[in-house]
């Protein structure tokens, strides 16, 4: 496949991902509204918000890094997409996953976080820094069960290549990691809750006490960029977990279904549980998910 074709497909995939991300969040908020007896937003509301934000006429900037922050953030999201094989078995939708493996993705997630952190820091707003401090602190704890789960999977499949991991799960639900390695799945899915930043792990943004956290100063186009990234990243992260634990997807339909369910799970949990403080959430991650993560490895070693 020529480079041009690949780039074409990558852009197409990105477009699909972005749209699916926006629609998915709309659908999910609609579902939440219906659950609480409301009509709720329009399904296309995320699109409208995005257009509105890009149509804001005036812009402010605190400095170069304030400018670069969203770029970093979006690069992080798009980058993770680029390195992620989306559809198993298709040469068109593997993006640039030949450059690196699972480790690359799990570390590239930091790229966007770093950008956000720096941009928000440049904003000079203390709440931004507080939010970032909380987010990073929480993330260190999230990373532990996540790492254990990744190690467990890597032991299980003796590979770090996502494509190979997906390949090993083909052939029915009984081959999914979810079934063959339940503890790793539990640990990772608990970590996923933290990664997505929904309640109970949304103290980073916590509007009531810490006006929206890191993006306090972001507005207009910058905010639009951040929203775009959010839409992409949520799908891609769900795809990552889908690939690792739920058998991957062989076509876009399955991908859409699975990512929707995975994403819905986090929102569902968020609806049920109240918010943790950072000094509560970190010990929590060091208790339950950590135990599952260790179990996942111990069982494999035995």
């Amino acid at each position, binding site marked *: 496949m020529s480079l041009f074709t690949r780039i074409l497909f990558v852009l197409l995939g990105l477009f699909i991902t972005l749209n699916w991300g926006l629609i998915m969040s709309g659908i999910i908020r609609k579902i939440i*509204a219906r659950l*609480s*007896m*409301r*009509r*709720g*937003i*329009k399904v296309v*509301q995320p699109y*409208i*918000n995005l*257009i*509105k934000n890009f*149509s*804001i*006429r*005036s*812009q*402010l900037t605190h400095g170069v890094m304030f400018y670069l922050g969203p770029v970093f953030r979006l690069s992080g999201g798009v980058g993770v997409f680029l390195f992620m094989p989306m559809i198993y078995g298709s040469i068109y939708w593997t993006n640039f996953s030949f450059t690196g493996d699972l480790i690359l993705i799990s570390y590239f997630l930091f790229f966007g976080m770093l950008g956000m952190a720096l941009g928000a820091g440049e904003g000079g707003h203390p709440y931004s820094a507080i939010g970032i401090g909380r987010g990073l602190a929480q993330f260190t704890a999230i990373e532990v069960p996540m790492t254990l789960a990744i190690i467990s999977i890597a032991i299980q499949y003796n590979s770090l290549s996502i494509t190979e991991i997906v390949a090993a799960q083909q052939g029915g639900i009984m081959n999914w990691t979810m079934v063959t390695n339940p503890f790793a799945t539990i640990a990772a899915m608990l970590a996923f809750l933290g990664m997505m930043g929904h309640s109970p792990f949304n103290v980073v943004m916590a*509007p009531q006490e810490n*006006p*929206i956290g890191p*993006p*306090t*100063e*972001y*507005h*207009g186009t910058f*905010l639009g960029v951040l929203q775009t990234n959010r839409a992409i990243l949520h799908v891609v992260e769900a795809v990552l977990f889908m690939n690792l634990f739920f058998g991957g997807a062989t076509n876009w339909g399955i991908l859409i279904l699975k990512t929707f369910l995975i994403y819905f799970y986090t929102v569902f949990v968020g609806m049920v549980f109240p918010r943790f403080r950072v000094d509560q959430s970190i010990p929590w991650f060091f208790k339950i998910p950590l135990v599952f993560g260790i179990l996942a490895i111990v069982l494999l070693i035995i």
Partner: protein
Amino acid sequence: MSDKKDIHEDKFLAPENRKHVVIGPDGEEIHVDPLNDYFCTDMPKVEKPYKGVMEKFLNWARAESLWVLAFGTGCGSIELPPLFSPRFDAYRFGVAMRPTPRQSGVLIISGYLAVKTLKRAIRSYEQMQNPKYVIALGSCTINGGMYWDSYNTINRLDHYLPVDVYIAGCMPRPEAVLAGFMKLKERIKKGDAEGANEYVEKLDWYKANQKKIIKDWNMPDYNW
């Protein structure tokens, strides 16, 4: 627009805004003029809308996505939370609350406005981005309402901020507020709601009015 000099001779100048000298790392003296050094002193410009279909489309998007700054000035602020309850459900109109003025497009002045609060309201309004809309809630914002003869409560909000929609009542019920939102949407879609540009165009007049009652101005002329 008053001269900068006046600001500094102001007897109400807050201590933290006075000019002062700090000693730098090499022992050199650094003169700090907080109002000029900490704040941007530029003045805003009129942001011209696009023409034709493009602007119509954008205005539609703006009208369908109204992000409200969660800022309660008076008793009306208690009428706002029910808007988002299942009974009234303002979300379905694209209305949402945002905690930061940077991301908000609508400022609701929810009730009487004391001079002290007006100052904060002006700041918040100026920190919002163009296009931005003001909804004035309750009689107090229209003509002072029951505080019409108070020494400390403004009577007419439109002398201080460009109001797009007034909602009468003391207090208006959430249904009225929703109606107000509808009205605002209409205005936006029609392209009438150019309060932000109007504010910039008539900035001198607005500022003069504001400064007439806010005697301890204590801030730059325009709060970016």
